[in-house]
C-alpha cells in the first residue's frame, strides 16, 4: 500500500509497463483498475499469433477523455530500447528492499561490482521473512534502482546488470 497518489499517477508509463509485466508473469487475460474517476483496462488481444508475444490493448474509460488512448502495443514495445547485454534484476515479491545485511554493514553490492549467479545482491523482506536475493545472472552492476529501506513491488526493477 503506498501513500495517496495523484489521479494522474495511474497513467504513468512506468506503472503501465509494470502492469503489463505483471499480466505476462501471471498469464492474466485482463486487468481493470480504477482510481477516483480514472480507469485503465488492459486486455490481451483475442487472436494471438502462434509464437508471438501477447498483445496488450489499453482501454481508457470515457470518464477520462482528457487522456488520449494509446495505440495497442506489445509489451516488448513498451520496453525502452536497451543494450542487449543489459539485464534488469527484478523483485520476486512485494516487501522492503535492503541493500545491506544489516544497518551497520556495507551494501551487498555497489555500482561497478562484478557478480556471479549466486552472489547475494540484496534482501527483500516481507512479514519479517528476509529473502536473500541472488543475482541469477553473471556480470557487473551498472545501477542500483531501489532505495535502501523503501518498499518495493513485485516485479519492480532492483538492479541493472551488464552481462557481457
Amino acid at each position: 500500500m503506498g501513500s495517496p497518489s495523484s489521479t494522474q499517477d495511474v497513467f504513468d508509463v512506468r506503472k503501465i509497463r509494470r502492469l503489463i509485466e505483471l499480466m505476462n508473469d501471471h498469464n492474466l487475460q485482463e486487468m481493470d483498475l480504477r482510481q477516483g474517476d480514472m480507469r485503465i483496462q488492459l486486455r490481451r488481444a483475442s487472436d494471438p499469433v502462434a509464437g508471438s508475444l501477447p498483445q496488450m490493448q489499453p482501454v481508457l474509460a470515457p470518464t477520462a477523455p482528457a487522456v488520449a488512448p494509446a495505440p495497442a502495443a506489445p509489451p516488448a514495445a513498451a520496453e525502452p530500447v536497451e543494450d542487449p547485454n543489459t539485464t534488469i534484476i527484478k523483485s520476486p515479491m512485494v516487501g522492503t528492499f535492503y541493500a545491506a545485511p544489516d544497518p551497520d554493514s556495507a551494501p551487498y553490492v555497489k555500482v561497478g561490482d562484478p557478480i556471479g549467479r549466486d552472489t547475494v545482491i540484496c534482501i527483500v523482506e516481507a512479514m519479517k521473512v528476509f529473502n536473500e536475493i541472488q543475482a541469477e545472472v553473471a556480470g557487473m552492476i551498472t545501477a542500483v534502482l531501489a532505495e535502501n529501506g523503501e518498499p518495493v513491488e513485485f516485479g519492480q526493477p532492483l538492479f541493472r546488470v551488464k552481462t557481457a
Partner: protein
Amino acid sequence: MPRPPRPPALTVDVQRIVSEKLVATAEHHERLESTNDRAKQIARQEEEPPLPLLVVANQQSSGRGRGARSWWTGPQSLAFSLLVSLEHWTGGRARVPVTALAAGVALVEVLAPRLAPRTVGLEWPNDVCVEGRKLAGILVEAPTANRLVIGVGVNTNSRLSDVPAELQDRIATLCDRTATCHDHTELLVGWLQRWDHWFGCLPGQANLVAEAADRLCLQRGLHLRLRRGAEVHEGICRGIAADGALILETAEGLGKHYSGTLH
C-alpha cells in the same frame, strides 16, 4: 500436554527428534552465535545433509532481529532453527512470507495449553505474546530461492530477573508465568508436529494458515502505526488477510501491508 516422565531437561534430545522422523538431520551445540546463521551456512554447503535439518543451541549469544531490534535469548531459553527445502514449491517466492505466520501459529498452539487460561496469541507478523508481553520470536530467512531457515526463540526457563532492565516490561517467560520449568524436547517435538501440519498447507492452501493466524491475532481493534521507509501508515488493525498481509483501516480505507515496523 502430558507431563514429562523425568525432570524437565534443558538440553534437547535431538536423537529422539531424529528417531521420531520429525527431522532428517539434527545438530546440537552447547553455544552458537546464531542458530539461523549456522543453518544458512549449511544451506550454502556444496554437500547438504538430508533436510529438514534442525540446529539447536543451549546458548545463543547473538540471536537476531534486524539491527537494534535484536532478540534477547536468556541463559535457559529455547533457541533453534529449522532448515527446509522449498524445491516442491511452485509459483516463486510470493507466498514464502506466510511461513512466518505458519511458524507462529504452530508456536501458539504449543505454548497456549501450557499457559491456560491466559490468552496466548500472535502479534503480526512474528511475535508470540501473552498478557501484552513477548514470549517468543520468529525470524525467517531465505538464503537461496529454494531454502528456508525458520529461527525460533522462546523464553522458556529463564527468569524475569535474567532479562535486561530495559526489556523487563516487554518480555514474559514461560517459567515465570507458570511457576514451573518446561522440558525443551517436549516443546520442540510439539512445535515440529504443528509446524509440519501448517507447512504442509503451503503454498497451495496458504489461506488456511493466514486464517488461523487471523484467529490468533492479538492486534485486532488496536490502533497501530506502521513505518516502512519514508511511509507511515496509522490505523485500526482489522486482522490478517487471506494472503497473510496486515489489514489496517486508515482514513483512506482498508489497506493491506506486507512489511514495515510496527510501533
